[in-house]
């Protein structure tokens, strides 16, 4: 009896394995593997795109969504999650899909305009209503008695942007607005001193952090629901959404004088679309993000649109501030990762570990 039941179970397993792949005939499915804060955006965007595609091609399309932390999503794609397109938080994560999984071409970031980032965001402060601690700019965060909530940069893409924004803001104060100085041999000493200051600042900053959540949404909940901390470092889009969802009477946004231009990139996963024959539609899907309806939806869901006309229409929502890019200040993700976030790199050293490595 045992044997027969086992066989039946194994049979069932095989059957289920069969349903894993494959599409219904006449209907295209697309899987968009994305990170946490884009859920609301893509829910609406997918509907809009499906309508457009059906009108133009008389073909029904179903877009499946997957959301989780950016890093673990990249890992899932590397390990075989069949994503037609990826829309992640950092270029580093898509780079990893390229280098570790060989699932798309090395030139992926050049294939679409604006570094393949159809929308951007930046890092701002969320404070308690009325700003009781008078937080105005980056230096205020390390004052005595101020506590700051930010997720763990080792597990959260958003948290890396937070860290880099803080670092860059110090360099901006020390060196002025001319980022070419960083590569100028003549300014070498000034740059070294500024980098030292930035490191010291970031070190101080994390001393003011009581909780390191594993993701951006977790940090927002800790700050708003549990009422931990005086300042939350957050994506601008997350901060705006949090105000809408969790109560405009509880928290408000403070825009620092300068911050980082966060560019969440998108890409078509070559090996998957070629195998499934979905390249045309996947590319159309991403292009649609750059078109006006896509840009409008991005703005509606609090991402800064690239399209100047659309941005102009929403300028009340997106106040101007000085933005620097990761390429300008840190020389791209690869270098940044090695210097700051790898095992035993700067972030680990802040917490007094990793001394054994390197």
């Amino acid at each position, binding site marked *: 009896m045992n044997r027969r039941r086992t066989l039946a179970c194994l049979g069932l397993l095989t059957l289920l394995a069969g349903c894993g792949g494959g599409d219904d005939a006449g209907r295209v499915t697309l899987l968009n593997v994305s990170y946490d804060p884009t859920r609301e955006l893509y829910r609406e965007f997918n509907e809009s795109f499906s309508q457009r595609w059906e009108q133009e091609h008389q073909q029904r399309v179903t877009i499946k969504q997957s959301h989780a932390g950016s890093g673990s999503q990249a890992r899932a794609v590397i390990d075989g999650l069949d994503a037609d397109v990826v829309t992640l938080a950092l270029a580093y994560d898509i780079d990893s899909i390229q280098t570790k999984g060989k699932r798309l071409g090395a030139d992926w970031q050049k294939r679409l305009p604006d570094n393949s980032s159809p929308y951007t965001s930046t890092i701002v402060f969320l404070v308690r209503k009325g700003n009781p601690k008078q937080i105005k700019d980056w230096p205020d965060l390390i004052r005595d008695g101020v506590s700051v909530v930010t997720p763990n940069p*080792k597990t959260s893409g958003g948290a890396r942007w937070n860290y880099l924004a803080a670092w860059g803001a110090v360099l901006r104060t020390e060196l002025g607005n001319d980022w070419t100085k960083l590569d100028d041999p003549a300014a070498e000493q000034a740059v070294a001193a500024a980098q030292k200051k930035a490191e010291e600042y970031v070190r101080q900053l994390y001393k003011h952090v009581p909780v*390191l959540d594993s993701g951006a949404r977790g940090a927002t909940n800790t700050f708003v629901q549990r009422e931990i901390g005086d300042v939350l470092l957050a994506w601008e889009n997350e901060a705006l959404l949090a105000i809408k969802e969790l109560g405009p009477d509880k928290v408000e946004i403070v825009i620092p004088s300068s911050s980082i231009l966060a560019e969440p990139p998108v890409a078509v996963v070559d090996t998957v679309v070629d195998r499934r024959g979905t390249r045309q539609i996947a590319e159309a899907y991403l292009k649609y993000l750059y078109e006006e309806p896509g840009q409008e939806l991005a703005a509606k869901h609090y991402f800064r649109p690239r399209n100047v006309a659309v941005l102009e229409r929403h300028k009340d929502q997106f106040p101007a501030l000085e933005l620097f890019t990761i390429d300008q200040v840190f020389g791209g993700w690869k270098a940044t990762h090695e210097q700051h976030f790898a095992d035993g790199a700067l972030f680990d050293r802040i917490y007094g570990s990793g001394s054994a490595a390197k």
Partner: protein
Amino acid sequence: MSFRQPSILPGFGLTLGFSTFFLSAIVLVPLAALVMKTATMGWSDFIRVVTDARALASYRLSFGASMLAATLNSVFGFIIAWTLVRYEFPGRKLIDSLIDMPFALPTAVSGIALTAVFAENGWIGQYLAPLGIKVAYTWIGVVVALTLIGLPFVVRSVQPAIAEVQRDLEDAAETLGAGRFTIFRRIVLPTVFPALATGFTLAFARAVGEYGSVIFIAGNLPMRTEITPLLIVIKLEQFDYKGAAALGFIMLTMSFVMLLSINLLQAWSRRRMVAAGR
């Protein structure tokens, strides 16, 4: 001595064969993959990863908090099991059926709910905060979460054993003038102890590996409130599968040794009982 002692009962080959096969397919082959992955890294790399200061701090927290949680569970789990088996009071059935809840609640939900209760603005946290006791986002929070998820193990192991304790023996002892404590030590404890040990071990083992509920309540500060499973996740986030496998391997080995020694101890005590003619 042969591999097994003769018995007239049938089905030894079939059942042992089937369970070993199934065990291999579901548990051993996957774990072998973990060991193999660890083996692909060099010896010196392995040592460096598993003896990193941060890893050591995380073992201290993971194993220390689990030990504390399992101990708390043994004490209170015994009291709860005793109460549920021996006493009749209103709501006993309901409470009995709620004991399994920590298993059914997704660990993330337990974590979120516990944090909500024990945060400084929570139901219980607000009364503890003036006393200077912070539970959420400290190691105490870790212990609380681990205690919750291990509770059913102890209660459910001990309940049947307490039901087994022969009341007549207790009564006889009492008639003969034995004190309450003596009865407990000489009659109750020996019967219940193996079950209590099982419950303790399982609660401990489960606590060591727990991830979902702890990350919400721990605060996750490196060197202070960072558990080993979180370090594994951090390694994974960096695509460092080998490092993750190495830490997983260390945890697995420690837990295996723990479990094996308890099981050997139990087998030994059972054999002693059998030898004494029950």
